[in-house]
């Protein structure tokens, strides 16, 4: 019970207006800080967006971005390892059917692929997913 916290991955959520080169500005701060981006997505609001980024050093990234005037929040997400082949995602879905996913995105990380999800009740979800035999990446793997 006590160590399931390690499956909480710190994602940076960055408020971004729909203005040209906002993404470039975020990417530049991370590059200048020599921070590596592991996963990434952009969500469209109405007249603004939320940039969601997984990085190797989240605290540092947050501080650097905040210093540059960005509004940044940490959001805990889960990272599920999946097979990088047809059916890789499908294999997970049966174990995930009781979990309320707010949003998700994926990326390849050879030899595997990774599914990132934001869920409603994170601790309960972790337990269910592990009990279902899924392989969750812990934050050491990330950070």
């Amino acid at each position, binding site marked *: 019970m006590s160590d399931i916290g390690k499956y909480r991955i710190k994602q940076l959520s960055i408020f971004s207006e729909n203005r040209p080169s906002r993404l470039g500005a975020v990417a530049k701060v991370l590059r200048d800080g020599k921070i590596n981006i592991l996963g990434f997505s952009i969500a469209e*609001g109405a007249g603004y967006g939320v940039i969601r980024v997984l990085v190797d050093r989240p605290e540092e990234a947050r501080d650097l971005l905040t210093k540059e*005037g960005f509004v940044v*929040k940490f959001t805990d997400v889960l990272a599920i390892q999946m097979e990088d082949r047809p059916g890789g995602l499908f294999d997970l879905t049966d174990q995930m059917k009781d979990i309320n996913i707010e949003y998700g995105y994926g990326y390849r990380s050879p030899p595997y692929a990774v599914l990132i999800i934001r869920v409603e009740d994170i601790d309960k979800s972790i337990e269910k997913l592990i009990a279902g035999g899924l392989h969750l990446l812990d934050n050491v793997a990330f950070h």
Partner: protein
Amino acid sequence: MPKDQLDRLQLKLLKILARRVYDSSPFYHERMREAGMTPQDIRTLADVTKLPFMTKKDLRDGYPDKLFMRDRSELIRYHASSGTTGKPTIVGYTRNDVENWSESLARALTSIGLGKEDVIQVSNTYGLFSGGLGFHYAAEKIGAVVVPASTGNTERQLELIRDLEVTAIAATPSYLMYMGEVAEKMGIDIRRDTKLRSGLLGAEPWSDRMRDRIYETMGVRGFNCFGASELSGPMFLECAEQDGIHFWGDLALVEIIDPDSGEPLGPGQKGEMVVTMLQKEAFPMVRYRMGDITSIMEEPCPCGRAHPRLTRIQGRVDDMIIIRGINVFPSQVEHALMQHRELGNEFQIVVDRKDHMDSMLVRVELRPEAFTDDIVELNELREYISSRLKGVLNVSAKVELVQSGTLPRFEGKAKRVVDRREY
């Protein structure tokens, strides 16, 4: 009426007015006392400058009816316009006030040649806004047939214009432009298929260029109308010459002043319009600073009327903006936004016009603490603010949440409004 005769009449009415407000308006009595004057000090027309000014603030502070100098039993109507903060400005009317208002605009309609053979469609909003009922009463007074269409349902409005052989329409210029486009889509050629030839247009800024375009596209001659709910409503119009708005001298005494010093300016000089309603009964409207920038035209009008003529409104002394005919003050927007602790102190109002419809966008900074990864929540906040603004302003506004610290900061007077409209 020749000029000297009009002057004598104005002086007589001004004396009576000074006496009336001195005797029956505690508010204005106090103002005159502070200014160290009595009604006897009005000996010539130029003495009007001795009377103290009134401003929108006076009306606001008097909310709802503290300025009224007649009993409720003598009032027959209220209208309301948006105030500079959350509260509206309430105006009241005695029977004579409504009568004079109708008379004023009826005269204006007659001056452009409208009469009992005409069918006048009133496509201004009916309700608390004085535009709809003002034209309604005036059109009835000249014996025209009124089509009280109000706003909305544009296709039906156009069918009525065609089928009822409407000859004149009262509307905002942008709504008329919009109607023109809808007509085209419906296959109605206003010039060929309808008898609509005159547009009584006002309640928002517009230009001669827009007037030309309306004429070119629809064959409708646009006449510039002036009014404000404080004065009663729409009251004055250009005559058939289409060159300057005639202010009926027996109803209103108009001055132009330097907005900074308050000193009177001469004919032809541009300044702030100050209006004294000579016959208003329900509440005092004495040397009321309209906030509109204009000038009195020097040359007599070729139509022969001696009533003073004013040029098109050329701007505002304050930051009021007019959106779809509705007055909006940035302070109202500010007031509404400040109720939300999720929002910062900076905001910007962007006004634009697309397809002849004004649109208003309010950009406001989201406080960093209020930012959440949950887009649904942010969108709900945005929509909630938008509906609150609509409630306060009576005009719909889109809201854009922007990053804290990105809106322009001002050291002096904040410039909150970006007006991208082309008139």
